[in-house]
């Protein structure tokens, strides 16, 4: 009787296509995956412990290092949590600038998501085009906040620098480029039969499974559940902007790819509206130097690029938070990895990693 034996293949933490230091223990029968167990913690810096011994202002630069590809959304989440705790009212102009920056960062992060998906499937040209288009966004960020990746731009009570005319000009130029490069990806990737055959029907997930696994963000919306906190909570000025939420049907890699592509178009629409509606005025509220929020706790959640990003802050009335817990979307989405890789081949596990699009800084916190 033929006896086959399963073997353990260790993918990572040093591997070209596990995004960052992610190690996945694959139990394989030939090339078919029986079990995929992610091993986390290689990039654990203990940010929650660090934040307990720093003032609220000093905690903000650490949120840049959580999801270092969309650090603007992390600042946004933390700043909103502290403002709700301390009862600070942010001026309207700052709210609009924050939404513009967060949406630019969402496009920036989805471009990397799609670029790495294309590169993991072999089309490195697709990745080069994504990184070329990303440079235009980085120029805007460089112009407005002086940094290209860890911005520390959205502060408690407003934003650090004003949205200059040069930045507006660069943003307008970028908004014209968006439909052009989206159609270029459609020609290069979406229409490509090899690309579609590699991701259609791969690691599909039903809506019930996704909800049970507490998944959020594009991974959940790909399964058909239209839950987007920008619409649900309508925080900041999202309530006044009209945009729709792209939703997939089967929850496979193809739908995740399509949801990200459509979300980029939606973000461009949001930026367009914000540019028109942005009033003149202050960009920073009156915030006391020694900010002492009242004793109590707050949990504020925002729609990060990879899902629901929540900040739970317990304050004991001093200038330093007593406890900060960060609900990190990539960390919770990693639970879906095993379900997505089971029964697939090694080649598909790679496309599963890049369609969950985890950022290890955020997963290991």
């Amino acid at each position, binding site marked *: 009787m033929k006896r086959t034996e399963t073997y353990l293949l260790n993918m990572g933490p040093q591997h070209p296509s596990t995004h960052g230091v992610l190690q996945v223990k694959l139990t394989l029968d030939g090339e078919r995956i029986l079990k995929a167990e992610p091993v986390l913690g290689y990039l654990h810096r203990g940010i929650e412990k660090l934040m307990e011994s720093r003032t609220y202002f000093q905690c903000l630069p650490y949120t840049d290092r959580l999801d270092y590809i969309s650090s603007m959304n992390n600042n946004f989440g933390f700043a909103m949590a502290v403002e709700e705790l301390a009862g600070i009212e942010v001026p309207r102009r700052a709210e609009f600038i924050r939404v513009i920056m967060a949406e630019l960062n969402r496009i920036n992060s989805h471009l990397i998501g799609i670029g790495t998906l294309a590169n993991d499937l*072999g089309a490195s040209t697709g990745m080069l085009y994504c990184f070329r288009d990303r440079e235009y966004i980085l120029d805007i960020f460089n112009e407005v906040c002086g940094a290209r990746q860890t911005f520390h731009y959205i502060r408690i009570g407003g934003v650090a620098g004003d949205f200059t005319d040069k930045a507006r000009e660069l943003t307008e130029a970028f908004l014209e480029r968006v439909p052009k490069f989206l159609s270029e990806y459609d020609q290069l990737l979406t229409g490509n039969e090899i690309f579609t055959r590699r991701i259609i029907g791969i690691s599909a997930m039903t809506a019930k499974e996704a909800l049970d696994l507490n998944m959020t963000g594009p991974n959940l919306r790909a399964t058909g559940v239209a839950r987007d906190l920008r619409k649900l909570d309508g925080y900041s000025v999202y309530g006044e902007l009209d945009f729709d939420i792209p939703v997939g049907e089967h929850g496979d890699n193809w739908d995740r790819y399509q949801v990200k592509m459509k979300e980029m178009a939606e973000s461009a629409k949001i930026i367009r509206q914000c540019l028109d509606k942005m009033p003149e005025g202050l960009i920073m509220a009156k915030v006391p130097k020694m900010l002492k929020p009242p004793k109590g706790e707050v949990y504020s959640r925002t729609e990060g690029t990879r899902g629901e990003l929540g900040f739970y802050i317990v304050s004991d009335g001093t200038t330093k938070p007593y406890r900060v817990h960060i609900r990190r979307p990539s960390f919770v989405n990693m639970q879906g990895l095993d379900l997505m890789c089971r029964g697939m081949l090694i080649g598909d596990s790679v496309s599963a990693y890049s369609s969950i699009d985890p950022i290890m800084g955020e997963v290991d916190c």
Partner: protein
Amino acid sequence: MEISFLSGLALWLRGEIYALTGLPILSDLALDIIGIALLLGIISMAAIVFTYGERKVCAFMQVRIGPNRVGGRFGLLQPVADMLKLMSKEDIVPEGADKVLWALSPALLFVPAALVYAFFPFDAGAVLADVNVGVFLLFAISGQAVLPFLMGGYASNNKYSMVGGFRVVSQMISYEAPLLFSLLGILMITGSMRLEDIVEAQSGGLWFIFLQPLAFVIFLISAVAETNRTPFDLVEGESEIIAGPFTEYSGMRWALFFLAEYANLLTAAILATTFFLGGYLGPDFLPGFVWFGIKAVLMVFVIMWFRWTFPRTRVDQILTFGWKAMLPLSILNVFLTGVVMCALGLV
């Protein structure tokens, strides 16, 4: 066998040596040695030019400039720099590797890659080994390239290499059949397996690419699969199994694998030119072997163009595509050629 520039040169040389030494055996031997030296020169030249060409083509397609640092504005010395870098790399032998097999596999891979060049008609009459069963011998030899990959994969004691080794065996064997069947149509038309006859049969502009378009498509896809290049570069799918069989090789050993890969690439291009693009035939303002060179380089560019546009297919997709699509199509092509030839009464 008309006299072309190259074969004329060869005959003149043979006459000179015979005049010098007076022994016919010595002049044939000298000519063969010169031929072999020339062929090895062509292979190493091809490897050097194509490493540079591939980087430039890849860069241009990815909106980049490509190497422009080493050697002038166009980075012409880049391949030399690569070679020096590879030579200076430490030669690491993985622990627990099967030393003999491990060392042997790059050398063994290079043998069929180089041997195949003896049969190509670079110009009318300019063939090192003029064999009248050229096509048959050609594919018999190039079929040997499968084993060294597997040996490399098995011997380097690394799970990724093992998986790469299995993949290479399944892929190359399953594309051997469509490759051969696609050429059957041509053999039926020319009636002989001698490569020069096939080229001569295409004289007068009637290239087989126009007569056998389906066969050309099948041949091209199978040739790309044989040389393990995208969209079938599963063997060294770097994002999945790092570099397949040659993960554990470094320095000159890896360079040998690399050399063999580019030799195979040039073989695929030359086969496509000889069978479908009329080899050395062309309007006579250029000598035969220059036409041959232009067509071969053009085919190499097309294969490189594939590499920098398409993603990688999955293992089971390759096998189903190979067996369920390529093979039946090539057999259909043979059947169609037969029907057409009967209709035209050529049989």
